C-alpha cells in the first residue's frame, strides 16, 4: 500500500465552479464518494494533481420525479437510493442492485454516478439502469448533452470528455412495467459481482409486451442482449418461455475466464439468472406462472 501523495483537494460548491476547475487545472480529476478511487490511489498511486471533490454540489444530489421521468443526481449515495420509495416502486431492479452493493459504510459514501463513471464491467447499477432505458447528461463549461446509457460505456473508458461531468441520470416511468436484478457473488454480503443481470418487462395479459435484458461482467462493458429481447417480445409468459430465454441468453453471451470465475460458469449462470429475473419481474406485475 502506498501513502497518498501529490494531490490537492478542491471542494467547489457549485457545478460551474467544478467545471471551471476541471477545465483549467492541470491533471484535475473529479472524485465522488471515493470508495473506488481512494483504494486505487493507495494501490497504484494517484496521477492526478488536483482532485475536485463533487460532494458539496447540491444540484448533483437527490432523486425526483419530473415529467414522467425519474431523475437522479449522480452524487446521490447508494443509501439514498435504497431509501427512495420512488425507486423501489418504479425501478425495483435498481433498488435490489444497490441494496446488495458494498456494506452500510460503503453505501453511505458511494454514489450512483461514481459507480457508472468508474465503469467497471461488473458495476451493479449499470444493468438495471440500462434495462430501464436510462440516459445520462454530460456537461462541460460550453455544452450539455443527453446520451443513452448504452452509448456511455466503452472498453476501459466512457463517453466522458476530460472537461465533462455526468450531471444527471434519468429514465422514464412506465405503468405496468417492472424489473428485477440478480447477481452471483463469491459470498452473499459485501462482494463484487462475478456476474450480474437485470431484466425489464412490460406485461399485456399473458404476454410480454416488452423485454429488456442487460448483463454485466461478461464483456468489457455491461451489454444489452437485443437479439434475445426481440425474440422474447410479444411471447406468452410460461415455463417454456423461461427455458427458451435461459438457453438463448447462455448462447448470446461469451464471457472470458477471469480470476473470479470461468467463462463457462458465467455463461451457464447468465441463463439461470435470466430465468430468475423474468420470474421475479413477472410476479411483480401481477403475473402468475403455472
Amino acid at each position, binding site marked *: 500500500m502506498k501513502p497518498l501523495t501529490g494531490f490537492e*483537494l478542491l471542494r467547489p460548491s457549485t457545478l460551474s465552479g467544478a467545471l471551471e476547475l476541471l477545465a483549467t487545472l492541470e491533471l484535475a480529476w473529479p472524485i465522488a464518494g471515493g470508495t473506488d478511487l*481512494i483504494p486505487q490511489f493507495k494501490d497504484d498511486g494517484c496521477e492526478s494533481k488536483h*482532485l475536485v471533490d463533487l460532494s458539496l454540489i447540491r444540484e448533483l444530489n437527490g432523486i425526483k420525479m419530473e415529467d414522467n421521468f425519474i431523475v437522479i443526481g449522480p452524487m446521490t449515495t447508494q443509501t439514498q437510493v435504497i431509501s427512495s420509495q420512488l425507486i423501489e416502486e418504479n425501478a425495483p431492479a435498481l433498488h435490489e442492485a444497490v441494496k446488495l452493493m458494498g*456494506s452500510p*459504510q460503503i453505501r*453511505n459514501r458511494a454514489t450512483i454516478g461514481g459507480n457508472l463513471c468508474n465503469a467497471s464491467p461488473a458495476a451493479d447499477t449499470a444493468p438495471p439502469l440500462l434495462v430501464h432505458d436510462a440516459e445520462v447528461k454530460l456537461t462541460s463549461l460550453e455544452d450539455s448533452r443527453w446520451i443513452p446509457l448504452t452509448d456511455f460505456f466503452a472498453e476501459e473508458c466512457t463517453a466522458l470528455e476530460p472537461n465533462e461531468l455526468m450531471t444527471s441520470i434519468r429514465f422514464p416511468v412506465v405503468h405496468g412495467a417492472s424489473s428485477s436484478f440478480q447477481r452471483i457473488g463469491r459470498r452473499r*454480503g459485501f462482494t463484487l459481482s462475478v456476474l450480474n443481470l437485470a431484466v425489464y418487462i412490460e406485461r399485456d395479459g399473458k404476454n410480454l409486451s416488452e423485454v429488456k435484458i442487460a448483463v454485466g461482467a461478461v464483456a468489457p462493458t455491461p451489454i444489452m442482449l437485443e437479439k434475445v429481447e426481440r425474440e422474447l417480445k410479444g411471447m406468452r409468459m410460461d415455463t417454456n418461455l423461461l427455458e427458451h430465454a435461459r438457453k438463448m441468453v447462455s448462447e448470446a453471451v461469451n464471457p472470458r475466464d477471469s480470476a473470479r470465475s470461468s467463462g463457462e460458469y458465467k455463461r451457464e449462470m447468465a441463463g439461470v439468472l435470466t430465468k430468475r429475473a423474468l420470474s421475479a419481474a413477472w410476479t411483480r406485475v401481477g403475473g402468475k406462472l403455472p
Partner: protein
Amino acid sequence: MIFELNGKNVGVEAKPTVTLLDLLRGELGVTSVKKGCEQGECGACTVLLDGDPVTSCLILAPQVEGRRVLTIEGLVDNPLVRELREAFLRNGAVQCGYCTPGMLLSGYALLRDNKRPSEEEVKTAIEGNICRCTGYVAIIESILDAAERIAPD
C-alpha cells in the same frame, strides 16, 4: 479546518493526503479507531459521520470540515451503547477486540434506527465489519440481546 469530534469542536490542519483515520489516530489520539485493511473492506476504522457509519480510511481529512464525527469514545455514556457493551461482555463477543469499536458503532447505528431488528438485519448492519477471530455468532447474538433489553415490550 474545524469539525466536531465527539461533541467538541476541534481545529486541525487537514492535509488532503491524510485520511480521517490517520488524522484521528495520529494527530488527535483517538485510538479506538483501528487501522486494518485501509481499503474500506474491514470496518475496523468505522466512525459515525453525521450519524452514519463510514470507513474513515476512505475519507480525506478536509472532507469532514464542519461535520460531526463520533467514535466510540464519544458514546461512552450513551445508554444504548452501554447496553451493547454489556451484551458483548455477557455473550463473549470480544476475542482479540480489534473489530469491537467498529462492531459497536455499526450495532449502535442499527439499534438507534431500528429497535427490533431481525437477525438478517443485524447481519446486514455488520456486513462491513470483519471479525478475523470469526466470532460472528456471539456478536450477532449480542446485538439481538441488546435490542431485546432496550425494547419497550
